[in-house]
């Protein structure tokens, strides 16, 4: 068998990678242990949230599958930050695990160029630092032009519950030891990370009456630009409870039986998603921690208590869970555990996510040190698209950090690397007011369409939306409030304008919203997304302009190009340590070099001076032209 692109792994990165390559139109094979685990949500049953939903919307804008499937599986939807400014709003969906998986599998089955092969990848054939084929199981060889590795936590995965530990990538699934050994034999820099999950509790064993209920939003938001509410399944509520002093006492008493505190786990966990024992240990003053009770699905008997991930021994888990309000007679159906796994230093990747060391081999997802479905899917999309584009000999598709969170994610990874599981936050972006959820399509769809990722149907809908916005804006720019329009401004409860002011300019005032204005002017109100777009862009126009100027400056900075194979040891005044760091990352531009941790302002100025001198020397040489020196 052979394929243009082979994707190894059927998690969120693998699915998005396979779908992207297939959409571009190359022959793609997805290899996974078991077909039925494709699209499995191994951690909490939710998609989106601040920063993460921005990624999902961008994936959607490139016609990826995550958002559409999440909408079809969404059993509880909320807009976070809804009382704050438009720029920071974010959508989050609780998803029915079974439904989500089902729709992902359906999407993949429907793709023309994609074939799915079940089995474990045991070996690669690498010659001259270039990958040629992969071996499945005992000796089935798949020839490939490009290989994308998305093995999640399965590389040398180790599961911990108390002092017991087992090999595995997820409860019930084996880890990929052979592959891990093969990868360790190639000269990649390997690190260990860990992540954890909470115990799962039987629904019927919870005392729901006394718990605080949290209902989903009405009207319900959607995640995909193309979805509407009619595709959502039945909606359910989430609930909230808290740990208490008794809980903390139990956990403190058993800390020495936690593999993390006894030093059995060497991997680094995420700072923002610590285990309950870690939280209690680090924030001793806090008497109580919130637990968000998430439904696992419409037909599931389980709930996911978000906030108490743990690797404490089973008896301790029982004890502390039952000390929590509402969980007094909780039945744990699956104990919490920590997973420790290998990841590879993402600084050894190109922006296309191809490894620097092995040509035609791409890495995406947790293997690069990230955490989260959305972060994984985002990398899958970029790796899948670029593997396919590279196979076709086309230009790569590498969204920049100034235009997308996809760009922020990948630029951070390949430039900064990571010491802990990397998660997206809006504060990682320099341009939060521009990189919004609502305009992800305007930032992504056009270029993704050119790369061949976006269907004609979606592109048509997108173009129509853009045209409507332009038309509507044109109309509103010519619609004026004049000093004589007393009826209008008194209806708006504002002062008489000194001179004619357009509807668009009136939108810049924070106290006026589109709908009030439209009523006062008695004009027809366009669709909600058009209103939101125009209103948001007007409200932030001053800031958007400023950030755009910054982006321009940044681009100029970026253009201060560092030649590949640049010899950093030739730069006067760089310490050995800094030379080593720069040689490792091989930044393409000065701006990229600047963000590498440990690079000092002095080092940057030394580098800048050297680049300028080289540039001048080259220019002088060229100016001398072909006159030969005697």
């Amino acid at each position, binding site marked *: 068998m052979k394929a243009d692109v082979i994707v190894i792994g059927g998690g969120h990165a693998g699915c998005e990678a396979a779908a992207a390559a297939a959409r571009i139109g190359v022959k793609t094979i997805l290899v996974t242990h078991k077909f039925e685990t494709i699209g499995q949500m191994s951690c909490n049953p939710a998609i989106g949230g601040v920063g993460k939903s921005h990624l999902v919307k961008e994936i959607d804008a490139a016609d990826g599958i995550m958002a559409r499937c999440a909408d079809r599986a969404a059993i509880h939807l909320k807009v976070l930050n809804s009382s704050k400014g438009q720029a*920071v709003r974010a959508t989050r969906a609780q998803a029915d695990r079974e439904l989500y998986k089902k729709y992902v599998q359906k999407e993949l089955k429907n793709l023309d160029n994609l074939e799915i092969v079940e089995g474990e990848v045991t070996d690669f054939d690498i010659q001259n630092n270039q990958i040629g084929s992969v071996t499945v199981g005992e000796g089935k060889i798949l020839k490939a032009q490009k290989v994308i590795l998305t093995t999640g936590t399965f590389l040398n995965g180790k599961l911990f519950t108390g002092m017991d530990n087992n090999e595995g990538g997820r409860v019930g699934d084996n880890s990929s030891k052979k592959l891990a050994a093969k990868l360790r034999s190639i000269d990649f820099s390997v690190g260990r990370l860990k992540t954890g999950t909470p115990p799962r509790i039987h629904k019927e064993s919870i005392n729901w009456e006394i718990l605080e209920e949290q209902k989903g939003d009405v009207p319900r938001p959607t995640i995909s630009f193309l979805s509407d509410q009619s595709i959502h399944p039945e909606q359910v509520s989430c609930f909230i409870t808290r740990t208490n002093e008794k809980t903390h006492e139990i956990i403190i008493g058993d800390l020495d039986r936690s593999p993390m505190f006894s030093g059995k786990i060497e991997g680094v966990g995420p700072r923002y998603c610590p285990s309950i024992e870690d939280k209690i240990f680090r924030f001793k003053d806090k008497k109580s921690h919130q637990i968000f009770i998430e439904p696992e699905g419409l037909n599931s008997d389980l709930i996911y208590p978000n906030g108490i991930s743990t690797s404490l021994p089973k008896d301790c888990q029982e004890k502390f869970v039952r000390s929590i309000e509402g969980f007094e007679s909780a039945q744990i159906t699956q104990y919490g555990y920590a997973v420790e796994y290998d990841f590879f230093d993402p600084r050894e990747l190109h922006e296309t996510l191809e490894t620097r060391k092995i040509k035609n081999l791409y890495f995406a997802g947790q293997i690069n040190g990230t955490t989260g479905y959305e972060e994984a899917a985002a990398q899958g999309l970029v790796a899948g698209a670029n593997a396919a584009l590279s196979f076709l000999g086309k230009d790569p598709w590498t969204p920049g950090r100034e235009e997308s969170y996809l760009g922020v994610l990948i630029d951070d990874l390949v430039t900064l690397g990571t010491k802990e599981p990397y998660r997206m936050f809006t504060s990682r972006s320099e341009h939060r007011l521009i990189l919004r959820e609502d305009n992800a399509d305007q930032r992504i769809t056009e270029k993704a369409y050119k790369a061949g990722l976006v269907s004609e149907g979606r592109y048509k809908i997108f173009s129509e939306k853009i045209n409507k916005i332009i038309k509507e804006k044109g109309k509103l720019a010519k619609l004026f409030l004049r000093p004589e329009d007393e009826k209008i401004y008194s209806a708006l409860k504002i002062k008489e304008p000194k001179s004619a002011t357009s509807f668009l300019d009136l939108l810049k005032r924070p106290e006026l919203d589109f709908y009030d204005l439209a009523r006062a002017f008695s004009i027809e109100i366009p669709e909600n997304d058009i209103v939101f777009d125009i209103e948001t862009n007007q409200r932030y126009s001053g800031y958007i302009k400023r950030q755009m100027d910054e982006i321009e400056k940044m681009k100029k900075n970026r253009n201060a190009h560092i030649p590949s194979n640049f010899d950093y040891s030739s730069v006067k005044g760089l310490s050995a340590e800094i030379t080593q760091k720069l040689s490792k990352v091989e930044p393409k531009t000065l701006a990229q070099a600047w963000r590498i941790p440990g690079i000092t302002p002095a080092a940057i100025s030394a580098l800048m001076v050297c680049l300028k001198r080289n540039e001048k020397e080259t220019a002088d040489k060229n100016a001398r032209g072909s006159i030969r020196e005697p």
Partner: protein
Amino acid sequence: MEQAIVACSTPQGRGAISVVRISGKEVKSIIYGLFSLKFDHGTSKVAETSLSEGFNEKCLISCFEGPASYTGEDVAEISCHGNPLIVRALIQKCIKLGAKNANPGEFTQRAFLNNKIDLAQSEAVIDLINASSGAAMVAASKSVSGNFGKNVDKILEKLRKVRILVESSIDFSDQDTNIDFMQINSLFNDFRCLLGDFDARIEEGIRIMSEHRVVVAGPPNVGKSSIMNILSGEEASIVTEIKGTTRDPIYKKIQIKDLQVDIYDTAGINEETRDEIEKLGIDKSRSLIEGADLILEVVDSENKDFSLKKDENILKVFNKSDISDPPKGFSGVVVSALEKRNIGALEEKIYELLSGDGTNALFSARERHRNLVKKAFLEIDSCPDPIDMKNVDIAAEHLKLADIFLGDIKSPMSADDFLGEIFSTFCIGK
């Protein structure tokens, strides 16, 4: 550690002693090669080295093992007799033993690259070397020891307290963080006050470091050039009886007590002249007058009503007291350049006016710092006040930019470092 560098750290020329400094990885072997001496951290030892056939130089060697040294590398300071020939021979020998000549500022650069000092401190080292008054020296040395940096840290700490709350309210709104906007606004006001205070101190820190520029100005032929020559102790300006002799401004560095002063002699202000070259000279005089820290407005009895019409930074000087008396009620200094009469009083007055109350400066500062603080101020002024739910996204932008500007004074902070601060403040993570 990098290859050792060597340089003479004391001024060139003859003196009682000179100090040759070496820093880098070969320092231990160089010290052994020169003196057969074991390199011991924190010690000063006397030993001899042979610099030429039959000539042994006795030196004092102070050893500092990295990282506990100025540059963070192994450092030795060798004090020898202050003869340029000895210094040269000693440096040559160090080079033979593996060192190379240091570039200007390279010791400080290494200290900076090895994180021994921050950008502001390395600037202060240069300021300390160039300080042109006693007060400036004190201020710069406070900055070198980190006083300025500590002030910047204090302000950044305040700002980041606000930012931690503001950013958390955006990125972690679904978490159990209970962000209180009252608290945000009270911290924000604290920060704003502190920044205002800091801005004023920076002004003082810059003023004290600035060079003192004194301009001698007045009508033609009142003896400006003669005064300049007396103050500088040499014939810097040509003195004649002819009006308008001085065309291009003449500049000299002079020392009054512990104060270094740049003094400029200018073309006399003669409104009636038709001479194009003289006119150009007068234009130059005027622009120098505008930028002066102190103007010596020189008049004589024939020009007693002349005035530059300036109220600030002016010291009136009546010259030629040997042939005429000043008008009644003359408030300036009365001198005779010809007979060198009362010049001491003139110097005293110049010193008094220039040195001011600068001894209160808490640190030295630079224009670069002031510009960054001004930019930060602009952000704070355009930040919505009070900060609330609805405007928090916009407030976050202004606060972030203020952080970037202030952070640039020492070294900027990455988004990831900042997230680290959030995580250590709040228990975040469901």
